[in-house]
């Protein structure tokens, strides 16, 4: 048998109170795309950080091409030939592509030579990218290419990719996969972390499944169905969201010719956005990140103010009102960024429950906080949405991404909104939690609320939404019923072609 590229043997890592990895062993062969599967909190990140030299395991050993391998820092891992593309990009908006690439390298060449190298690599691997472009102007997919090219310039033997497709359009995913397959053909290996089981089945040669820090399964993902993979991951039967048909009710949320300048120089201004959402309806808003999603959410939540009539709830104009007036009227929102926007990282869950629940849940009496009620509300959210945490006294940043997301969405849903707007409700959330969140959104619509789901995950939108519209460069297409919508039409809508969709209908 040939020596594997990387052999992981009995890695264990404990944090106070949690066993992140327990006796994890597996091999990554040369020229292999190896999937690492697991729910949030299963220990994937810790394991990957150990390989990349960000975390030192308590016990266990790794062998790199047969030799002992224990990187104490990422630069040692890079020197060995390991590169990593993180889920959250570490790029500077105000610098151009070449400068950003240089910043992430241990020994960057002069910028002009680097730019030439970037052009070569981007051509060789089919990742179109202009080294002189400002990163602030790039789409999420292009930003990811910056990270990938930064890695490829180091000529890695092993490329680690953490949830690479969560921000990409179907077309961008295709391009990425072509590149990854090309890398495999060159004999390089890829450790691929994703929740999207269909992708893993289409791309990967081997899969290692983690649950609660332990390896619970190894398989060839091409031989398994997505459902089987998901069940290995979760350890139980999966609950599929269900959605009975229904008739739409009155208009609860109406947006009329909403135009808004983005306060950020790298944001997207909203242009003449108009849409009406009925009681019982779930409107899915698709689009690639950076096309005005954040601005739309801010304009609906009240963080950005618009002319009074631009946004109305049950016919009442609220465009010029602040967030709390809108909350009182029943318009609630859950932003995409969990830490720092939807929740304050250093505050306890009780304090975070107060963040949006203060008025509607009557947690405040003439300006004075009723901490007992606030704790009760936080506990109710934790219980009802199965948030895994020791209790409401825990600070938000101590929760895993999926658990915090359940808390943030649950906090809004438990307040019985008339209109709920969520941005990327299941981004970076594991399959079980994502299903639970989707089901909760559907139950809410079932109960007569209007729900707006802004997401880049088309599968998610087509699964739960009744109607679909796309954001493109700050413009929203007319909404169309999801039933009968083809993927081609969706693609055209994402490209901003409103009329094309009408012609096809």
């Amino acid at each position, binding site marked *: 048998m040939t020596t594997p590229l990387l052999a992981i043997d009995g890695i264990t890592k404990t*944090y*106070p*109170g949690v066993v992140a990895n327990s006796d994890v062993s597996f091999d990554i062969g040369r020229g292999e795309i190896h999937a690492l599967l697991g729910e949030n909190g299963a220990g994937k990140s810790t394991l990957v950080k150990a390989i990349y030299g960000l975390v*030192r*395991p*308590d*016990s266990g*050993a790794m062998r790199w091409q047969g030799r*002992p391998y*224990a990187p*104490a820092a990422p630069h040692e891992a890079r020197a060995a030939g390991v590169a990593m593309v993180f889920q959250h990009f570490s790029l500077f908006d105000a610098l151009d592509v070449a400068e950003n690439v240089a910043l992430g390298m241990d020994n960057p060449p002069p910028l002009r030579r680097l730019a030439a190298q970037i052009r070569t690599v981007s051509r060789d691997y089919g990742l179109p990218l202009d080294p002189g472009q400002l990163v602030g102007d790039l789409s999420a997919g292009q930003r990811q290419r910056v990270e990938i090219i930064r890695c490829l310039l180091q000529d890695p033997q092993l490329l680690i990719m953490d949830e690479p497709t969560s921000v990409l359009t179907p077309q961008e995913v295709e391009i990425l996969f072509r590149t990854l397959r090309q890398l495999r053909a060159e004999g390089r290996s890829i450790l691929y972390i994703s929740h999207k089981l269909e992708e893993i089945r289409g791309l990967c040669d081997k899969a290692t499944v983690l649950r609660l820090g332990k390896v619970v399964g190894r398989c060839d993902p091409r031989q398994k169905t997505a459902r089987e993979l998901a069940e290995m991951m979760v350890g139980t039967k999966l609950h599929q969201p269900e959605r009975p048909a229904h008739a739409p009710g009155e208009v609860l949320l109406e947006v009329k010719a909403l135009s808004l300048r983005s306060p950020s120089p790298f944001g997207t201004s909203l242009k003449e956005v108009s849409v009406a959402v009925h009681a019982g309806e779930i409107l899915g808003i698709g689009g690639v990140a950076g096309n005005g999603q954040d601005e739309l959410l801010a304009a609906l*939540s*009240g*963080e950005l103010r618009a002319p009074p009539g631009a946004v109305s709830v049950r016919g009442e104009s609220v465009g010029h009102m*602040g*967030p*709390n007036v809108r*909350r009182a009227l029943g318009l609630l*929102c859950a*932003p995409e*960024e969990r830490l*720092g*926007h*939807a*929740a*304050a*990282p*250093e*505050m306890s869950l009780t*304090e975070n429950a*107060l*963040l*949006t629940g*203060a008025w509607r849940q009557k947690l*405040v009496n003439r*300006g*004075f*906080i009723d901490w007992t009620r606030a704790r009760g509300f936080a506990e109710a959210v934790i219980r009802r949405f199965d948030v895994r945490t020791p209790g409401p006294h*825990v*600070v938000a*940043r*101590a929760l895993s991404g999926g658990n915090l997301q359940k808390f943030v969405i649950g906090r809004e849903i438990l307040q019985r909104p008339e209109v709920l707007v969520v941005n990327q409700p299941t981004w970076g959330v594991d399959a079980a939690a994502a299903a639970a969140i989707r089901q909760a959104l559907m139950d809410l619509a079932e109960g007569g609320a209007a729900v707006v789901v802004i997401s880049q995950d088309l599968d998610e939108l087509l699964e739960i939404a009744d109607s679909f519209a796309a954001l493109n460069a700050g413009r929203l297409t007319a909404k169309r019923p999801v039933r009968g919508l083809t993927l081609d039409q969706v693609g055209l809508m994402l490209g901003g072609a409103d009329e094309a969709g009408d012609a096809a209908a």
Partner: protein
Amino acid sequence: MLRLEKRPQPSAAWGWATPVLAVGLTMIAGGILFAALGKDPFAAIKMIFWDPLFSPQFAAFSRPQLLVKAGPLILIAVGLAIGFRAGIWNIGAEGQYIIGAICGAAVALAFFPAPGWYIFPLMVIAGAFGGWAWAMIPAILKTRFNTNEILVSLLLVYVAEKILAAMATGRMRNPDGAGFPGSRNIAQYPAASNLEIIAGTGMHWGVVAAFIAVIFAYVMLHRHMLGYHVQLAGQAPRAARFAGVAPSRLVVLCLGFSGALAGLAGLFEVAGPARMISIDFNVGYGFTAIIVAFLGRLHPVGIVLAGLLMALTYIGGEIAQFMLGLPAASIQVFQGMLLFFLLALDVLSNYRVRLSRAEAA
């Protein structure tokens, strides 16, 4: 190799332990400093921390001084702490303190020598207003033109000092003072003086105001929505906007509140312990209060303890100055070291230190 590992939660125990540890380290480093100056370090430390309270020679005089000095420090620090929690950095309390004192003194001098129960309350209002108005300059510049409040408030201290000098030698100069700079003695003007409420304790109206401010701040920070919004804005500005907090309103509120309290401290000082407007009326309470606020963990109760401790170093420092001939600056260095050690040790409440070997574990 030493490694810092981020704690999943900030450690509550270290939050309490670091101020105590910082005081300990300051004593050690200060002792070394005093030894380098050729003084007996143990005698100097004892003189600073022990003698003001317990020495039969000094205690009778210095014990009441404890409240006299701690009063303004606590009053200013409480106001600053609320702003600091919101991420609004008022570094110019010293200037607001001066302007508050000038405004309060102006009321007193305008009524001199008429009697009247209403004069002192009017002075209090004028003092608070003066400090508030001086703090509104950085507040408005920040909300309108997005200037940096740290710079603006700090530089306004020097403007205030110039105004103070101009007043002491010009408009406010004592007409019966034979041309010497400095105003009339306000403490000797019964309707305007801020004297000890209970003789021999050092307790004057400024101390009362400080304790009221402490209670008010505690309730606001821990029980009231406004305090919650203040902390939210400091920790997660985007989340604060999402929660409906208007950032510019918070800037005006926090700067205004801390300015008003600093102005009050100035007024109580000029009408009491300092007795009059003079060129060097201000002694740096506005700056020392920054140390007090941080040493007290930006917590009202902590600030009371920190204020008393800093007052002790002031008094003890004076004793050490004339008993051992320590230079005045060495006491300021001593106070600065306290803040330095505190901020450095603060790392421990968010990170744990790990020893790790270079090879594989």
